[in-house]
């Protein structure tokens, strides 16, 4: 950690990085496969100062909110430098923002100046212009696009600022000196349950605590490959982290990822579970396509590695401990693991060198560690990468906590958990209904380890609140404790394990968030559907559990004896399938990932007190547990079900 720059705010960090790392590359942009364009820390800082000066000249005040609409590219980070160096905060969002969101965010955040990445997005904004009275100036980021009249180009603003600085304008420096640690550096809008996005206020000290606490050691010889959207706080924290360490970030994308992994040979990267899933499938496919000899070698190597690592994890206390463990049992098992570890060691050594190393090459071969976040990593994939020797550090967090709450350490890597909380961060587990603190609580054995409940967090990363939304802020943060809405428990080796979400939001493996309730509400409007629960947390796509409406079908002339018969009727299934197709479609305004791919009919109705609360709200975790096998069946269907 001694490599890191310690700063009070982002502007100071940018300045110190320029002083310390000078001509080292800070960011690199892909032109062609083997042609990348670097920009140094020094150059970036100087251009950032010029831009800041230009922005101040345009009227940006300290603590203003500046819109930043675009995806990963060098100009994005330059715009961020400009905004931070003039003491303002940015309001970032990607190109996939909808018109409604644009209108809401620009008005709600009181944005008067905005960066816009591409001509296409610019045209959309210009068309909507009458709807945001406050938006005065627009700066076009894409250097290749032509700006229409009344729109600035990024280059012009930088040049203007440069000219001003030549004549001794130091207003940017004055702004930097004036930044307070609890000033916002960004205001990120997340989509909320009610459809109205919420503006998460993150401060400089939120970000600085994250950058200081990330338990990975990097220095100027490292390389980070970036593929997640930079306006997402998870990716952003890594880019800020790389700046503190003097590491160059290489902007890649999904399409070129395989090549870029090979050419950049990243030593570190952050990514969503989907990437690991696709890399996992690619590796397995490559193995199964190869010479039978090499397949045999790979499976032998994987087997040996699993034996070796399992014993190693056990001996170093890094196995998943969900239940209290008896010391005697462990003491008895220890010699077995020690013998297995020793016996496998030489063979593991050989196969690790000869077989697993080439496999690791498909991820560039130099990865020291990777952080997976933004959704749960399926455990088989998690194990696979750890066994073939790419340590995956799974983390847990949310935009409201800037984002990391807990992350696995390399030296304390417990597969199946998200590791211990970040430094200076306290985690509580509270009962869902009563709100009683279950952990840490002396009343319970082991202070409440192993008990399930909602995760509460207190620490330097917790947001300042939701912008202009005190109601939600008070609901979410109480006495400094932020309610995450997620279910979890503390394992017996003090790691956090995530068990699900108490809030209904579904996060797909692609990282997309969706609210099931609007979809469910729409579907229950059908005369044939009584209840419906959308599932798909940590899956690729969503599915649904449906209770058919027996009355509705009776009216149609289908008169079954029982709910059970109704659910088994192929005619019923067909009707419901058509209903879903008709109601939840792209034409009706649903996004592609919100389309229901498959569903199961439930053989009995929900009852109050069991599946439903007294207010007829579904108890999602109860239904999930009860019909776990049906949900599993949606994603891994049993072959050939005879109806």
């Amino acid at each position, binding site marked *: 950690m001694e490599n890191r720059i310690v700063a009070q705010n982002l502007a100071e960090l940018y300045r110190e990085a320029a002083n*310390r*790392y*000078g*001509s*080292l*590359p800070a960011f*690199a942009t892909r032109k062609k496969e*083997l*042609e*990348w*364009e*670097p920009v140094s820390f020094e150059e970036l800082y100087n251009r950032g100062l010029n831009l800041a000066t230009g922005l101040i000249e345009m009227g940006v005040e300290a603590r203003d909110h500046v819109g930043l609409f675009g995806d990963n590219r060098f100009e994005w980070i330059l715009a961020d430098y400009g905004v931070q160096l003039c003491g303002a905060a940015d309001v970032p969002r990607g190109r996939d923002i909808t018109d409604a969101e644009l209108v809401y965010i620009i008005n709600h955040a009181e944005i008067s100046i905005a960066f816009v990445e591409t001509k296409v997005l610019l045209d959309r904004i210009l068309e909507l212009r009458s709807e945001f009275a406050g938006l005065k100036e627009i700066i076009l980021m894409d250097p290749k696009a032509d700006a229409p009249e009344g729109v600035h180009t990024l280059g012009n603003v930088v040049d203007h600022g440069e000219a001003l600085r030549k004549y001794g304008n130091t207003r940017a420096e004055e702004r930097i000196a004036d930044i307070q640690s609890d000033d916002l550096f960004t205001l990120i809008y997340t989509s909320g349950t009610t459809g109205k996005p919420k503006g998460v206020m993150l401060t400089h000290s939120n970000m600085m605590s994250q950058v200081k606490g990330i338990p990975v050691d990097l*220095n*100027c*010889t*490292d*390389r980070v490959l970036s593929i997640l959207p930079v306006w997402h706080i998870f990716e952003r924290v890594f880019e800020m982290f790389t700046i503190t360490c*003097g590491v160059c970030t*290489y902007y890649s994308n999904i399409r070129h990822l395989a090549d870029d992994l090979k*050419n*950049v*040979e990243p*030593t570190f990267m952050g990514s969503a579970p989907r990437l690991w899933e696709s890399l996992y499938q690619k590796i397995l496919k490559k193995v199964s396509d190869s*010479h039978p*000899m*090499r397949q045999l*070698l790979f499976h032998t190597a994987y087997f040996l590695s699993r034996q070796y690592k399992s014993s190693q994890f056990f001996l170093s206390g890094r196995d998943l401990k969900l239940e209290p463990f008896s010391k005697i049992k462990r003491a008895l098992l220890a010699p077995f693991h020690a013998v297995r570890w020793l016996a496998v060691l030489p063979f593991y*050594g050989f196969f690790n*060198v*000869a077989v697993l*190393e080439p496999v690791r090459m498909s991820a560039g071969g*130099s990865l020291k560690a990777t952080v997976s976040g933004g959704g749960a990593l399926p455990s088989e994939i998690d194990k696979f990468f750890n066994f073939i020797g790419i340590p995956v550090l799974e983390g847990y967090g949310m935009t409201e906590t800037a984002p990391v709450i807990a992350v696995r350490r390399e030296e304390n890597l417990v597969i199946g958990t998200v590791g211990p909380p970040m430094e200076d961060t306290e985690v509580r587990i509270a009962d869902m209904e009563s709100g009683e603190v279950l952990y840490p609580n002396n009343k319970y054995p082991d202070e409440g380890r192993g008990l399930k409940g909602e995760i509460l967090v207190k620490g330097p990363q917790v947001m300042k609140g939701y912008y202009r939304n005190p109601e939600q802020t008070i609901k979410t943060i109480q006495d400094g404790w932020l309610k995450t809405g997620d279910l979890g428990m503390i394992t017996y080796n003090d790691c956090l394990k995530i068990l699900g979400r108490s809030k209904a939001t579904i996060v797909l493996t692609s990282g997309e968030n969706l609210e099931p309730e609007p979809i469910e509400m729409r579907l229950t409007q059908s005369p044939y559907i009584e209840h419906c629960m959308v599932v798909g947390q940590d899956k690729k796509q969503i599915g649904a559990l449906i209770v058919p409406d027996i009355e509705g079908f009776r009216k149609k002339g289908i008169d079954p004896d029982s709910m059970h018969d109704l659910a088994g009727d192929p005619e019923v299934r067909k009707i419901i399938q058509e209903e879903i197709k008709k109601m939840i479609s792209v034409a009706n305004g649903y996004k592609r990932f919100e389309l229901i791919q498959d569903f199961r009919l439930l053989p009995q109705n929900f009852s109050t007190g069991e599946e439903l609360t007294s207010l007829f709200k579904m108890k999602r975790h109860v239904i999930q547990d009860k019909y776990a096998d049906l949900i599993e069946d949606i994603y891994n269907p049993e072959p050939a079900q005879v109806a």
Partner: protein
Amino acid sequence: MEFTTQLLYPLDQVLLAVMIFSIMFGMGASLTVDDFKTVLRYPRGILIGFLSQFGLMPFFAYLLAVYFNLPPAYAIALILIGCLPGGTTSNMFAYFARGSVALSIAMTTASTILALLMMPFLLEFYTAEFTREISAEMQAAGTGGEFVIPTSNIIGSLVLVLLPVLMGMFLRAKSRVWAKTAEDTAGFMGIIVILFLIVTAFVRHTGLLLQTPMEIYISALLVGLLGFLFGYWMSWAFGLSPIFQRAISLETGIQNGPIAFAIILLSFVDPVESQMLWLAILYSTFIVITSSFITLYYRRVGKFDHEVYKNTSIHNRLFGEEYVTGYPDGFLPARISNDPSQGSTPAQKRG
């Protein structure tokens, strides 16, 4: 110590021949014409490597033979091992020791070709007194005749083992995928056969293990270790950067064992043949163990400078050959920062 039975049965000899063939074929399958060009890109490294491979190693082998007063057949085998070119195993070890793989491959390529010239000359030069000893023994035993190093046979066997290398290279030029499969299969087969031979030799001749004098073990062990040590020191003395030092060190110590077996089988007869084979087996066994440990050690100490080298060369790969990576003052230790290329090639121009 005399061999009462043959060390290798006919079946073993066939297996050995198959192993030599497949290993050398695999070696060829891993080589490209570009590797020969690389030789020209590292003239300094190659020259220093040449000095340590054909200068130091045979000399140490000779010193050990004299110092331990080895029986003449063992002495000749030891010197023969000292004169061998490098093998492909050293490239793999160089990779894991965070050494320069390019230099290792270039040295293997160069030394294999140069061996045609150097080996007969060096053998002639260092083994003269030992061949005289054998001749004298033969005279005394009344078997008559005079023992000479069969130079033309040695050149002949060298050419013979280079044939599969050429065939492998031809395959590589025709099909990359097939060459890769051939390389892996050959490597795997090589390991299986050599394990089989070592295990059967040890099982059949357990008595031999006890009879073999300690000096022979020690010299078989030391010849490789001295190669590692002096290869490292010599390249250090010439001011090479650490990644080259590690490559040269491993390349010097790890010799191409299969060539030794081929030469012994094709050019010598019993009882000398069995004694020489025994030493070659001992050397091959020890070198795998010692180089594993050395590699683990190099891997640890070389972590930082290898990362600098890697990062610098990736910058050159992506940002252009002219790009100069300017690390902050005091970040690099003197040895690396004084090397203008920071270990990468082609050398960087400093601003």
